[in-house]
């Protein structure tokens, strides 16, 4: 078993008086791509924020490489862990390169807010995200997909072993969602980064993650490789979703096919028998 880079130990998390998790334990293995899934309001983003020390737990501790993250300075954490929040604010009159340059902040000092290394890493991050052509464009002129890639480039420029992404594919069309997730896999493959993200699309989560964690009613409901986690039983309980799980013909990973409520449809039964045939073969 690989060491855990990031661990929540007996954490209690919540907002004001409303508790989301009590006594929760989750640890993340080094070099893996882990995705937190669950129904709306299950606390996926809450847990991700706790991992990224944006939301301090009221009890328990989050550890980064064994150290309590609370006791590390903001800057020291930022050299180890990058987090892309759900809705970052886009600054006015800023080029893509200027935006990505901000990712270098934790590595810079007061009198050296720039270095050749910074410039080189920014260029690399821009290239890795396919933004080279757009590097001098104002970020306010970018499309949703391009802007999302610019944000990921910023996080890449931060050059950290751990990367947290909160719903990186929201508001993107399918081809841009795929583009972002392929990029995530590429970063993981190239740099061995540990990546934790929150996604809504279960099939895409299954397709691009090593491990899925299903959160439901304040606890970890299911945890493991995609085929262990994405089962009709888990979907029914954690998502209130009646669905078939079939192998994705393209990736072999689980593919979720939602069913129509029993009384109103004829089709699902036909599909079911077909799938059973496929799974049997």
């Amino acid at each position, binding site marked *: 078993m690989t060491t855990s880079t990031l661990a929540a130990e007996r954490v209690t998390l919540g907002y004001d008086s409303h508790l989301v998790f009590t006594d929760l334990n989750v640890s993340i293995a080094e070099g893996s791509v882990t995705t937190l899934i669950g129904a709306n309001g299950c606390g996926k983003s809450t847990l991700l*924020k706790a991992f*990224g*020390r*944006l939301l301090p737990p009221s009890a328990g501790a989050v550890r980064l490489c064994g150290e309590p993250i609370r006791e590390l*300075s*903001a*800057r*020291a*954490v*930022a*050299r180890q*862990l*990058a*987090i*892309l*929040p759900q*809705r*970052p*604010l886009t*600054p*006015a*009159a*800023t*080029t893509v*390169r*200027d935006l990505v*340059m*901000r*990712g270098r*902040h*934790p590595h*810079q000092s*007061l*009198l*050296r*807010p*720039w*270095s*050749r290394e*910074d*410039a080189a890493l*920014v*260029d690399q991050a821009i290239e890795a995200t396919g933004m080279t052509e757009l590097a*001098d464009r104002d970020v306010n002129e970018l499309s949703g997909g391009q802007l999302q890639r610019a944000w990921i480039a910023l996080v890449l420029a*931060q050059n950290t072993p751990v990367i947290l992404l909160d719903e990186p594919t929201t508001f993107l069309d399918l081809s841009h969602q795929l583009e972002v997730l392929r990029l995530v896999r590429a970063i993981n493959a190239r740099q061995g980064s540990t990546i934790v993200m929150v996604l809504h699309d279960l099939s895409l989560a299954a397709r691009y993650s090593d491990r899925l964690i299903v959160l439901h009613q304040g606890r970890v409901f299911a945890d493991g490789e995609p085929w262990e986690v994405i089962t009709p039983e888990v979907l029914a309980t954690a998502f209130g979703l009646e669905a078939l799980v079939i192998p994705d013909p393209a990736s072999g990973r689980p593919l979720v096919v939602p069913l129509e409520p029993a009384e109103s449809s004829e089709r699902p039964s036909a599909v079911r028998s077909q799938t059973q045939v496929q799974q049997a073969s």
Partner: protein
Amino acid sequence: MSGRQGVDLGFIALPWRARLLLVTLACVAVVVTAFTFGIAAGSSRIGVGDVWTTLLGAGSRAFEFIVFELRLPRASAGLAVGLCLGMAGALTQTFSRNPLATPDILGVTAGASAGAVSAIVIGGGGYSVGASLLGVGIPVVATIGGLLAAALVYGLSWRQGVDSFRLILIGIGVTAILGGLTSFLLVRAQLTQVSAATQWLVGSLSGVSWASVWPMLVVLAVVTPIALSQSAPLEINQLGDEFSTGLGVAVQRHRLAVIVAAVVLTSAAVSAAGPVEFVAFVAPQVARRLARSSRPPLLASALVGAALVMVADVAARVAFGTEIPVGVVTALIGAPYLIWLITRKNREEHL
């Protein structure tokens, strides 16, 4: 505006920002020119060349008296007030992510005004409390009032940290209360006191002496390095508080440093010259548009503020026949700019 090139001198390395450098140098040139004309202009005219020979210690006795005793304190006060307000405005607008937010929303201006007016009105009334208020001097009372009000706004905004939007709303509330208090004092005051108080409330450089210039210079010397040290975190914070934390900014500590810097700068300027209108609002917006940057550049904003106050003061002394308070002129320049900015912004949003 690309971060691709930089200048590396070993102990210091900066990204090469040609436009910002040019704009800053141009602002320095304008400020030096305005400063020179500020000394040259007046009832006894002095040539521009004479101003500098005198400043450099080679002028005649008469010129020395006029320059050092009469004109230099006022020109320096204009310079310092403008620098303070310009930089305070840039800090406030950037941390609050709101171009309409001036240091006034931190409560400091309203607090200083309430303090000064109480000193003038109650002090003039002959009560012993009032007399002692006036005894310590209007600038001191104004400073205390401003700092207390700012501390109140910050304290009331605190809820597991200060959120800039909540701070603005509470600042507006506290400003309104203090404004009411000031009006109440004015309504109850004697006519002569009202006249003195109003003169103060408009903002004027007419009574300034070296005694009111030094505190501002000291404040500028201390606060400018603190403000500049917050320049990079200010830029990061444009991405939101969560992203800032993610990028290693200790958000609450940074915000406190910025607010204290803005409050102290504003307080110094307001105590010396009264609330000179619109400088803190207009100067950063002009500087940002000139530099075409994502936020108002701190030094350029301070310099534009200085240029604005000094030009307005020369105009206030020369252009209208009789002298009028500088605050009136900055408002006359600032208000149309505000309107132009808002209408232009609307148009951009509709595009």
